[in-house]
């Protein structure tokens, strides 16, 4: 892999920021988050805090049925309620709006309010705009809808059979997509291998559950025709034009104003319906309209449920434990629509072989439509599922060989000298030292101690189990994963840039403008401040960060796929580089020294080795803005730079898709070890130890990285032990509130120790890799392994999640196998 294939601008940034000769001054320090003071003091200004003059409020009526024709809607009683401004139905949408965007193939049409039929429980059938939310909800109660119920499609396997009711009649099938990809010689590898293990595995449907649900305020200006939409998080410059399309307005007339979000976990990544809806309602009444999902709607109608997958998976290996080939067949229950196409499986294919030297891979996918809420992004975006599958198979192989679970993994790790490493699908792993991470995690937990502890505990009749799992953490997607599925895709984007504008004002203060709404619980402002501090040696707390609205924004893709830290660091470094060149020229003039003799230090520029020959940024900036005649003659006034930083390393898939190209190349690596004790009488478990070691390349801020690892891990524990959206036989959601949808709280989480190794990426700014999702990629696998180990006397194999206490009791009351 030649670095020459890299995006040339990104390559320049990588070169300029790679330097490890001088120690870094600000990157790598656990500075306090610059975001914290305002959020922790209740001064964050979330969407629901915003009140525009004359603002109205909307509530929605969700369908009580999973699949039904809408025969009639009587809104007269609702309209008669004092305080109601307008009742809106699918008829209004049909007349004035276009369908919502979708990357799925085929006629799978979704409207912001159902028009002819509803396809899942909770789907919006009407909305009320009223003086306040109370009245709006009262009026929803008064809307009378006559439905004709249709046969409900819930089981994705049955949905594929001839004669099944259809979710989308125009598609003529419920199988929206089906294809087998083959990389290498899979059949032969299985034939030649000494052994194989096979498992049928089920990954349950759960969803990102931010405290702050999706919300937006539409504000239509009849005079200018501009629709302003305030929304809590949008990677808006990426698909703004799609929202304009749904609203049937020119894209230039749409202005999205980003608002901070209290969490996303993916659920706001492709957040288009809620802002489109608020904009639409505002256009209908000519006044600002606020719409915020309530929790019930967020659970039943958020368009962002996570993966819901059934697998038939096999791993071929030799007697010595060497892995040979992987065969995976998946039926994914996508729900009623297909907004992302099958992109969540592209994600899986970026690291399908994990950290192991597996050469041959077959991947079959059937994407099935059912009468459930559609899938969207959820931390891991499908790769967390494939990692669970792979680690399950590895544990089964270890058991089959009676080989230690650490040892079988160690034997198959990609060796440290083989990076960049090309995986069978075509994606690369940029850099790594997997053996180093393993050694560190074993040392951090004192693994041998716990093995001994387990033996003693077992002798006492206690049920102590150890889980040890590894994972890759791909970061920074490029957009080919959304379309390489098709031989003849309709739309083949290859951009996923991020931008930053850096201005140093006349008094020397640094103001940076970001072009994605990236504030949803991560630390974009801390990252940007630390990068600028590194470049200019200024106090990071002095950096001011703001966000462009869409009419002022440069290209951006937003946080998602663990990309934002890498990409915004690249953009800020690129803009800084340009500014630093200009500053050096001015300083060189003023100090009468060669540019090469200058360095950025102490909030300004100084002559190397001469402490008192120094100018503050303010000295230079004032000259740049106010003293044109003191500047070099060809230099315009001002001190501002904009950088659009493209994905550093994307290549196209080949024609027959036996090589998907490079699409997710900055790949971290992690190991987790958990020691648990199970109370077999209640099925409850206790954590005795939980340790994680991650390698996410160069670390910007260890504390915020720890936060990402711990948060992701706890979410993974939710998937492993607690969370599942339950549909009844009629397709109604049974747990549409937190009463029965159980998120792990901090009190349920173990104390997690986080260690780091730093293997820089050769392709990114400073060598940073993304690290927002890794915890959730490991925790389900580790809990499966640890529980299985604790219950080893009963010969248990974990094949589905979440693992309930009741299931554990059932296993433990079964016959012992030892």
């Amino acid at each position, binding site marked *: 892999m030649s670095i020459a294939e890299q995006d040339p601008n990104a390559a320049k940034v990588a070169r300029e920021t790679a330097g490890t000769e001088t120690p870094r001054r600000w990157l790598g320090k656990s500075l306090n988050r610059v975001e914290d003071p305002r959020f922790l003091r209740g001064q964050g200004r979330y969407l629901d805090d915003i009140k525009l003059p004359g603002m109205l409020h909307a509530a929605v009526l969700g369908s009580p049925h999973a699949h039904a024709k809408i025969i009639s809607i009587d809104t007269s009683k609702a309209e008669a309620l004092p305080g109601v401004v307008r009742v809106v139905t699918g008829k209004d949408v049909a007349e004035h709006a276009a369908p919502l965007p979708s990357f799925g193939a085929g006629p799978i049409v979704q409207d912001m309010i159902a028009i002819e039929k509803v396809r899942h429980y909770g789907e919006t059938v009407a909305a009320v705009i009223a003086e306040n*939310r*109370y009245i709006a*909800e*009262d009026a929803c*109660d008064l809307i009378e809808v006559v439905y004709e119920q249709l046969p409900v499609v819930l089981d994705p396997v049955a949905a594929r059979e001839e004669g099944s009711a259809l979710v989308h009649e125009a598609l003529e099938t419920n199988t929206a997509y089906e294809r087998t990809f083959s990389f290498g010689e899979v059949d032969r590898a299985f034939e030649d291998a000494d052994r194989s293990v096979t498992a049928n595995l089920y990954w349950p449907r759960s969803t990102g559950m931010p405290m702050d649900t999706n919300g937006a305020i539409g504000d239509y200006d009849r005079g200018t025709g501009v629709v302003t939409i305030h929304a809590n998080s949008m990677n808006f410059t990426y698909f703004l034009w799609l929202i304009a399309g749904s609203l049937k307005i020119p894209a230039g007339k749409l202005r999205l104003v980003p608002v901070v979000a209290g969490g996303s976990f993916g659920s706001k990544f492709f957040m288009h319906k809620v802002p489109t809806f608020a904009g639409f309602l505002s256009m209908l009444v000519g006044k600002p309209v606020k719409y915020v999902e*309530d*929790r*019930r709607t967020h659970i039943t109608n958020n368009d962002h449920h996570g993966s819901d997958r059934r697998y038939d998976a096999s791993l071929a290996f030799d007697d010595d434990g060497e892995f040979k080939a992987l065969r995976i067949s998946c039926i994914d229950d996508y729900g009623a629509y297909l907004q992302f196409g099958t992109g969540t499986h592209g994600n899986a294919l970026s690291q399908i072989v994990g950290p192991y030297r597996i050469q041959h891979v077959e991947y079959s996918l059937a994407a099935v439509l059912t009468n459930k809420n559609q899938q969207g992004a959820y931390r891991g975006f499908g790769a967390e599922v494939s990692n669970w599958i792979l680690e399950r198979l590895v544990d089964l192989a270890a058991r089959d060989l009676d080989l230690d679970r650490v040892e079988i993994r160690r034997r198959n790790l990609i060796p440290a000298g083989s990076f960049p490493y090309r995986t069978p699908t075509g994606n690369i792993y940029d850099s790594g030292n997997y053996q180093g991470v393993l050694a560190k995690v074993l040392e951090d937990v004192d693994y041998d101690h716990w093995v001994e502890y387990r033996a003693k505990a077992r002798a006492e009749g206690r049920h102590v189990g150890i889980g040890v799992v590894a994972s890759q953490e791909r970061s920074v997607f490029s957009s080919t994963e959304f379309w390489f599925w098709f031989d003849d895709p309709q739309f083949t984007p290859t951009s996923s840039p991020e931008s930053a504008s850096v201005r140093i004002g006349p008094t020397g203060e640094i103001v940076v403008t970001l072009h994605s709404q990236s504030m949803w619980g991560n630390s974009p402002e801390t990252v940007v401040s630390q990068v600028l501090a590194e470049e200019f040696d200024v106090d990071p707390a002095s950096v001011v960060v703001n966000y462009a609205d869409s009419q002022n924004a440069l290209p951006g893709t937003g946080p998602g796929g663990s990309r934002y830290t890498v990409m915004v660091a690249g953009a800020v470094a690129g803009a800084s580089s340009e500014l630093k060149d200009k500053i050096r020229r001015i300083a060189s003039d003023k100090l009468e020294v060669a540019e090469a003799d200058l360095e950025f230090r102490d909030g300004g520029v100084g002559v190397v080795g001469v402490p008192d020959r120094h100018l503050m940024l303010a000295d230079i900036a004032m000259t740049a803005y106010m003293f044109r005649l003191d500047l070099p003659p060809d230099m315009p006034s001002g001190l501002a730079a904009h950088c659009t930083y493209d994905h550093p390393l994307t290549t196209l898939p080949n024609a027959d898709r036996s090589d998907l190209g490079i699409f997710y190349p900055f790949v971290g690596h992690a190991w987790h070890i958990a020691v648990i004790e199970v109370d077999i*009488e*209640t*099925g*409850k478990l206790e954590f005795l130890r939980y340790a994680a070691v991650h390698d996410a390349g160069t670390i910007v801020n260890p504390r915020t990285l720890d936060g990402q690892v711990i948060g992701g891990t706890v979410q993974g524990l939710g998937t492993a032990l*607690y969370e599942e959206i*339950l549909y009844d036989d009629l397709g109604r959601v*049974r*747990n549409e*509130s937190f*009463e*029965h949808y*159980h998120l*792990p*709280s901090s*009190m*349920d989480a173990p104390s997690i120790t986080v260690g780091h190794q730093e293997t820089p990426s050769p392709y990114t700014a400073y060598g940073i890799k993304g690290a927002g999702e890794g915890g959730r990629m490991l925790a389900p696998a580790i809990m499966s392994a640890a529980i299985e180990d604790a219950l080893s006397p009963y010969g248990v194999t974990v094949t589905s999640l979440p693992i*309930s*206490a*009741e299931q554990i*009791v059932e296993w433990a*009351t079964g016959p012992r196998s030892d």
Partner: protein
Amino acid sequence: MKPAPFAYHAPDTLDEALELLAPGDGVRVLAGGQSLVPMMKARALRPTVVIDVNRIPGLAVVEEEGGALRIGALTRQQALLDNDVAGRAQPLLHAAGRFAGYLATRHRGTVGGSLAFAAPWAELSAAMVALDAQLEVRSARGERTVPARSFFTGPNETVLEPDELLTSVHVPAAAPRTGAGFHEVSARYRDFAQVAAAATVTVDDAGVCTAAELVLLCVAPVPHRVDVAHLVGTTGDAAALDAVAGLLVGLEPLDDIEVSGTYRSRVAVTLAKRALGDAFDHARGAA
């Protein structure tokens, strides 16, 4: 999620509150609001009148006399936990109370509210049944005292008439050398109980049981008192505790979205034994 329209009153006196309650139908009392408000917001409950009793003086007092307690209905659950006198007088109140919600909800949720709401998983209901508490109930028509053991009639159902207000709870004094135990299983830390067991045991100088009580939650429509008289005369040895299993045969707890009745039955035995075992240990230590 906003509640349906309702009228709201916040009377300053008990008499005023009782007068407002008198019409009965459609009226709900707001104390801590930790159950009522979320259910109103989900529109699962749609009272037409809400009477907020938080301004009425004297309803949140805890008094002790000779080991007996009078606990005002408006006493916050956390205030009861923070009350050392109450904890010493009747350790089960603290053992069970620790499981009632979590810190934030306990600071608002009230003792009386928990009992009157009668959620089938309410830990304080189990404690009051085990302790044979007497509930003082008032209405514009007068007042009466109802034993906790006959107060609950079903899930979220009690003998309270629509115009009645629970005003205080009288807990009789514990005998010397009385210990308590409480065990619970819930989906997560301090979630609603899926099964729970509350126990008290009194022992003599020699550590031999002279009295024992066991109450289970979520195995029957109301807090279920199990006759554990067989423990009297024993030291709570393994055989005596194992015999509890036989007493629970025939209970048919329901399946629900959380767990199956089978799981509840199995775990009830375990929790009952653990709660009684703890109560024995505690009683012997509490001499």
